[in-house]
């Protein structure tokens, strides 16, 4: 191994460069969709449909806990009825995209890296190369597209379930009527919030899928390498998602200020 490969800034730049080029390459191969449609639908099913139950369950519990904690504080000011505003706004803007992304990284990201990594170490990627089949088109693009499509859809569904969970807790444990909860929830969420939440989810999905494919495609060293690729995918994806979440929230504030003039 070249000594320079051990210097982390160089290694980081190399990894980042490869990942970015691979992402652009994959986006460029979206034109191959007509012959990869089956693979894309398969990925949509694996990423979206199969993840739906756990994502909904997870977000429902998040919504319930969120409602309970918020209700406890609001009850001190006798404003428990306002819990709907906070739950809806918090879930749509933050917790929905964020927590759904976490669920997807845990359930899909690591296994995606492991799957591609196994293909790499078992020469399947090389076999594609020698058959003149672009591995980015064949392996990466369908996963990236499937993830990017299903991530936001899953986020919308899971967020709704999360808000519903909050409503149930508000009704049962905080004594807030459903009608009050829904009315306040509507007041708490603007169209921009929904768009921004979907945008966040799209960015998180692309990030997680790109990181997973990048680590998978650069796997070496047999089973140990596959394990490392899977582990690194989860760590790096979650870190980037948190980071991008902060950036997007900051942009959201700027955009909202520009729109409302407030």
């Amino acid at each position, binding site marked *: *191994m070249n000594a320079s490969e051990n210097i982390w800034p160089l290694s980081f730049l190399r990894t980042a460069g490869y990942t970015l080029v691979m992402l652009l390459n994959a986006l460029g191969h979206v034109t191959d969709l007509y*012959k990869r449609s089956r693979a894309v639908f*398969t990925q949509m099913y694996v990423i979206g449909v199969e993840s739906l139950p756990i994502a909904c369950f997870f977000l429902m519990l998040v919504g319930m806990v969120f409602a309970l904690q918020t209700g406890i504080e609001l009850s001190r000011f006798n404003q428990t009825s306002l819990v709907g505003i906070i739950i809806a706004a918090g879930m749509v803007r933050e917790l929905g995209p964020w927590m759904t992304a976490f669920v997807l990284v845990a359930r899909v990201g690591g296994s995606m890296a492991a799957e591609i990594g*196994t*293909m790499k170490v*078992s*020469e*399947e990627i*090389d*076999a*594609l*190369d*020698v*058959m*003149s*089949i*672009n591995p980015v088109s064949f392996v990466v693009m369908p996963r990236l597209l499937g993830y990017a499509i299903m991530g936001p859809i899953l986020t919308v569904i899971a967020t709704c379930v999360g808000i519903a969970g909050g409503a149930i807790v508000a009704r049962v444990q905080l004594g807030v009527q459903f009608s009050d909860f829904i009315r306040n929830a509507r007041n708490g969420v603007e169209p921009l919030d929904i768009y921004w939440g979907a945008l966040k989810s799209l960015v998180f999905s692309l990030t997680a899928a790109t990181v997973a494919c990048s680590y998978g495609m650069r796997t070496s060293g047999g089973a140990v390498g596959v394990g490392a690729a899977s582990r690194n995918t989860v760590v790096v994806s979650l870190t980037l998602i948190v980071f991008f979440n902060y950036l997007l929230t900051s942009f959201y504030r700027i955009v909202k200020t520009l729109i409302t003039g407030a």
Partner: protein
Amino acid sequence: MAQTSEIPARTKAAVGAPVVEFTDVHTKLGGRQILDGLTFDVRKGETFVIIGYSGTGKSVTLRHLVGLMQPDAGSIRVENEEITTMSGRELADMRRKFGVLFQSGALIAWLTVFENVELPLLEHSRHSRKRRAEIIEEKLKLVNLWPDKDKYPAEISGGMKKRAGLARAIALDAQIVLYDEPSSGLDPVIANEVDKLINSLRDKLGVTSIVVTHDMESAYFIADRIGMFYKGRMIQIGTPDEIRNSTIPEVRHFITGGKEGALSMRSHAAIGTGRAPGMEHPSMRVEPPAAPQTSSGDTTIMQGFVLLDEIPPERSRAEQTTAHGISGDAKVRGTQPVEDGEKTRLGVASDATVRGAQPVNARDLEEVTPNAPTTLSGRQVVTEEDDDEIVDLSKTEEDTQSRTASGRYVMDEEEPEQEDSSIAVPADKTAIEPLALEPEPAPKPVVQDLSPEQPEELK
């Protein structure tokens, strides 16, 4: 110019101009020189077999050929086109000339056997669905996998994966097929069938084949010419007969599985020049066995035996290695008294530098019978066959005897001398017959038999 090997009569008509040419190719990986002036060519319609020790770069050579790796220097030409300077798109076009059978088959895991074979057709042909199905049926029947066409790779055995990989490799009627260890991991019957398949492709379809293998029986059976890869280049290229009768120690050592050839297979022995019969290119050199002397006068040796001054057997391994200046990765494997009583042979299991030791040469090593049990002060010690088993002479006699009792160090006392049995082509391989592959059953769940007859350590 080196002597050119003669093309066997059976393929002379089919063999034409070179379709693959490596010229002075150098590649370094991880600081290690993998290809060091590799030069050879493969002619149209022939089966060229590359043999050589594990980890020496044979598979790397194949990867260079299909552009998966780029050399540091040198020229690689395929059908007179230089591939080292090709762009990505040109490489993709060039690769369509090749079919590649990978060691593991490299089938796409989520596609069935049928779909795997269909993959190159879908990507690179405009055949109708019906025509594709006909081609796939033809190829799968050729490798006798048609009944298993709907199975996934995880549901078929290693041999079936290789055959499916071969069907995929020839789906587009590639004119050059590369085989990376086609018989490794297969039982002899299936390996034999794969060999027949390779011959059949050459004879029926006229494909040029380049095969990397360790299996000499297979190599003799399928090869028109064999190239021995050693230290990054071909040290001999010749017909199977020329290789079989080679006088080059490294080649003899390899083809006889260490029973002949004298020189340790990974020995650093050497640096001489010369040429051997059958050599193709002037860049090739023969490296006669001789232990190299370092500037300090030390001897470098890898895995073999050295003659040292007599060692008191009661001294520990550490004392012995220290006393004789063995450094590096040296591990003492035991001692063996010499008839004249003046010297003791000390085995080292891997890289070692031996200060002041006498150089190893072929004659000395031939005198050591690798498989013979060696007893020293009542202790059983390992012989050359046991690479991983290192006897610690400092162990107590009871320890060593208990190991002996478990069978780990006991060698056959009278192993019959085999006269090149490993290179004899069996009678059933002398004729190329139409393929008659028996359907291979799908792998069954492995149930470990823990019957009382098994040694205790296996339970």
